[in-house]
């Protein structure tokens, strides 16, 4: 890893980035200071270095001046390092002979108030980049294989759509869903805005298509436990929870459930109905198989019963099933684990969980659904009476700038339309009812959304601008809301039979752990962070892992499906590659210095460095394919026998010195 002793020939390019950099930093001064640095044979400033003209200038210079190092002072290397490395390669240079100085994100954009200091800082950053460039060495990328298969995690409408796009392209796809059936929240909805299609009527055919697609394997009742490897070659450990029912034998006749003695609140109906301990979540479930709820099954908890096993003619009940962990190899992963509704009981002022007639928007979907606990009759949970006066309260758990009670500061985007839909459905079924909506702002951006909302207004729904402070229950079970109407300035004191809380969409349960397993970042709102807020909306910071649906941020069904299409296309593109080139950032071990102490072996997070017996005693060896290039070994080695490729101590010290030089 010795840098060549020949004097390097460095080209420095200082970018104006239009006025983004040049508006603050004196780029000419930076260029001038760079041109006097050791080893610099040409320094230029360009309007847009990344443009075709900018790139051509560099290519020409490489040829004309015989450059062997290129330093670009511009935006963050996280944005354009790839672009410029590719340029170097095109010019026949080793791509690792590039160094960038971040004078935009970490200079002009944050120091716009002090041009002089910003210019000095930019000079220092360029000095440091040149110092590092002098010591760069050419590196060869290693090659990794590509497993042409994809795993989709989460089987809501986003995951289902992604799996179908992939399966139809002929790509083997595993759809991992933690519930006993795929379907997600869309399966629980009655109708969908703005067209009021019946939700399951449009979702169920897609679910059947998933089951029938020979390229798709549904792993229901399963969760991702561990992920290893990298783009093209992930190894995922999936825990397949014991279902106690053989999926292949069960035909879904339901004889078992008819005889099962245990009744449990039915979570699919938001606990407003009951199911048995052996159950199918909903009739259209995929896979269409029953499942035993081990927490409530009498046999599994008390050791006596097995009635279902006796009545099942097909012998599908298997009590000796246990959890299994399967390792699945895939080349790309799509994460589509959706959302969970905000837990309204965290806002005690609205009485959810205390007052039976305060429900959430998701509860409402079940109540109004023909397949739901009231068979589609609007009945309030407290006494099964049909409510006449209904109030909706918007933004429960959303748009809370103080983020109290676990609420989000963000707008959940869909709740206004959900309420518009639900209020409209009430008016449609029960024209005499009186419907009030307490809102902050009505947000109805979307194709056909505003028109739909205006239709609702025409039906006589009353919109009150203001967020009620509390809901009080009266003795007769009715609910009182006192609130200011911000539009008229009057205090409204009204009584209702039922209150619906339009709850926000929160990150799904278990997302923190899943993100850690996948090594993904979350944004401040708790959802998964996309690769770039504008240009890489379904990518992540990890190559080969993509996002679809609400797990990235709350969105409606069409947007979830659209993002799923994008994620599927990107995953398919990964799978179509012959091989993956990996950056060679691993350790180089000097065996003369290594004392075989095993510190590196003990600290490497990936088992990528091993101490082996050699003729000269115990020596560390790097296992290149497993190494991710973190540098932990190099920074720990007790004998300082390890040099990290591309991030050597020498390089870092040279950068440090150059940064601190007084110019």
């Amino acid at each position: 890893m010795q840098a060549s002793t020949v004097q390097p020939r460095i080209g420095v390019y200082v970018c104006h980035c239009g006025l983004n950099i040049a508006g603050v930093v004196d780029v000419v001064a930076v260029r001038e200071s760079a041109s006097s640095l050791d080893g610099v044979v040409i320094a230029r400033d360009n309007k847009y270095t990344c443009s075709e003209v900018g790139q051509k200038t560099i290519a020409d210079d490489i040829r004309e001046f015989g450059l062997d190092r290129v330093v670009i002072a511009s935006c963050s290397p996280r944005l354009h390092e790839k672009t410029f490395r590719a340029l170097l390669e095109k010019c026949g240079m080793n791509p690792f002979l590039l160094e960038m100085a971040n004078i935009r994100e970490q200079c002009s954009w944050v120091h716009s108030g002090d041009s002089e200091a910003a210019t000095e800082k930019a000079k220092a950053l360029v000095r440091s980049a040149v110092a590092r460039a002098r010591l760069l060495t050419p590196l060869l990328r290693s090659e990794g294989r590509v497993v042409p298969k994809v795993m989709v995690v989460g089987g809501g409408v986003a995951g289902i759509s992604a799996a179908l796009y992939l399966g139809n392209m002929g790509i083997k796809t595993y759809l991992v869903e933690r519930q006993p059936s795929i379907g997600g929240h869309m399966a629980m909805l009655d109708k969908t805005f703005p067209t009021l299609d019946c939700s399951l009527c449009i979702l169920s055919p897609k679910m059947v298509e998933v089951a029938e697609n020979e390229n798709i394997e549904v792993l229901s009742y399963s969760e991702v436990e561990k992920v290893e490897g990298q783009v093209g070659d992930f190894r995922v450990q999936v825990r397949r929870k014991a279902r106690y029912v053989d999926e292949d034998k069960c035909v879904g006749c339901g004889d078992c459930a008819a005889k099962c003695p245990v009744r449990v609140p039915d979570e699919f109906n938001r606990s407003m109905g009951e199911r048995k301990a052996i159950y199918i979540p909903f009739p259209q479930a995929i896979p269409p198989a029953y499942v035993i709820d081990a927490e409530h099954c009498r046999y599994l908890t008390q050791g006596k019963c097995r009635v279902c096993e006796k009545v099942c003619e097909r012998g599908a009940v298997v009590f000796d099933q246990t959890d299994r962990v399967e390792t699945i190899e895939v080349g790309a992963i799509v994460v589509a684990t959706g959302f969970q509704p905000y837990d309204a009981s965290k806002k005690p002022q609205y009485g959810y969980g205390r007052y039976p007639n305060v429900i959430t928007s998701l509860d409402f979907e079940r109540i109004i659904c023909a397949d739901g606990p009231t068979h589609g009759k609007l009945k309030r949970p407290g006494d099964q009476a049909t409510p006449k006066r209904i109030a909706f309260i918007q933004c429960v758990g959303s748009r809370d700038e103080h983020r109290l009670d676990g609420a989000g500061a963000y707008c959940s985007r869909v709740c206004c339309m959900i309420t518009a839909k639900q209020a409209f459905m009430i008016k449609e079924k029960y024209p005499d009812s009186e419907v009030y909506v307490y809102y902050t702002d009505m947000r109805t951006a979307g194709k056909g959304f505003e028109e739909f909302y205006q239709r609702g207004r025409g039906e006589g729904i009353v919109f009150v601008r203001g967020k009620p402070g509390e809901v009080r229950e009266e003795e007769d079970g009715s609910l009182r809301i006192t609130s200011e109407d911000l539009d008229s300035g009057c205090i409204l004191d009204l009584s209702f039979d039922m209150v619906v809380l339009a709850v926000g969409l929160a990150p799904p349960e278990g997302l923190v752990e899943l993100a850690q397993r996948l090594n993904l970042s979350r944004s401040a709102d708790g959802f998964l962070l996309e690769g770039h807020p504008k240009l890489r909306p379904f990518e992540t910071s990890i190559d080969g892992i993509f996002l679809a649906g609400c797990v990235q941020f709350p969105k409606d069904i069409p947007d979830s499906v659209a993002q799923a299409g994008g994620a599927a296309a990107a995953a398919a593109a990964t799978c179509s590659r012959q091989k993956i080139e990996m950056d060679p950032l691993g350790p180089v071990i000097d065996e003369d210095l290594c004392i075989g102490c095993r510190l590196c072996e003990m600290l490497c997070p990936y088992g990528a460095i091993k101490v082996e017996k050699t003729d000269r005693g115990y020596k560390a060896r790097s296992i290149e394919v497993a190494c991710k290039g973190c540098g932990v070994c190099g920074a720990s080695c007790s004998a300082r026998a390890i040099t990290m490729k591309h991030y050597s101590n020498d390089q870092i010290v040279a950068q440090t010195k150059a940064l601190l030089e007084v110019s």
Partner: protein
Amino acid sequence: MADLAVEGRAVGERQEGFEPQVVGFLCNWCSYAGADLAGTSRLAYPTNLRVIRVMCSGRVDPEIMTEPFLHGADAVMVLGCHPGDCHYLSGNYQAEQRVRTVWMVLDHLGIDRGRLYLDWVSAAEGARFADMVSEFVERVKALGPAGGGPASKEGLSRDEFTFRAEVSRRVVAGERFRWLVGRNKALSEEGNVYGEKVSPEKAGALMQSVIADECVRAAIEVLAGEAPVSVRDIASRLGISAQIVLEQAAYLKRRGIIELYDVLGRSPRYVLAGARA
């Protein structure tokens, strides 16, 4: 050598016109991305910080943490991903172990540990990053310039500060020190080669004694590298007993690191081995 610590001035008297030089080591995946986000969101912070990008905070060798002090830095920041979020699983835990032990070295040498800062910044925390830098720069201003004599918290002259920084760099480059840093956590969690768990207090005491020895050895090396010195010269320079210096000098001599230069009067003088040529 704890008595090396000189009484400095009280913190807080801000120095007019003192603009600290701060070097930051930021991991590519979280903290550097967070710093970029501060830029994208146009959040201003002081120009004092200059960043070096590394793949992971776990790449930041203790030597790299101390090196900037030799070249005029007033403070060093090491920023990584939040615990549990490191792109490489556990690099930030290593960074934390290292910073904690380097702090012990700095304490021992009378350099304020506030000049070495460790924190976590996620890719989404642009605003937090900007605030963090602003606050840290203020705190360094209160510490005063590194080696700023009476104007600094430590009260060390420029030369004395550089000397001590060099001693610290050598200590953290030493084999015994590095082995202990790497094993520190495991020692208390998994136990030593005999499977005996070491309490964190005991591990700390062990580290402390290693640091004490290594600081004296490193100081002897630095001084013997400058000119022939006697044990008494060294002892008076370091302000510690000649007995301690003698012990460590004997050790260095046995290991062939220093050698006898001449005998002046009755005191033998030493130089770095091979330096006589």
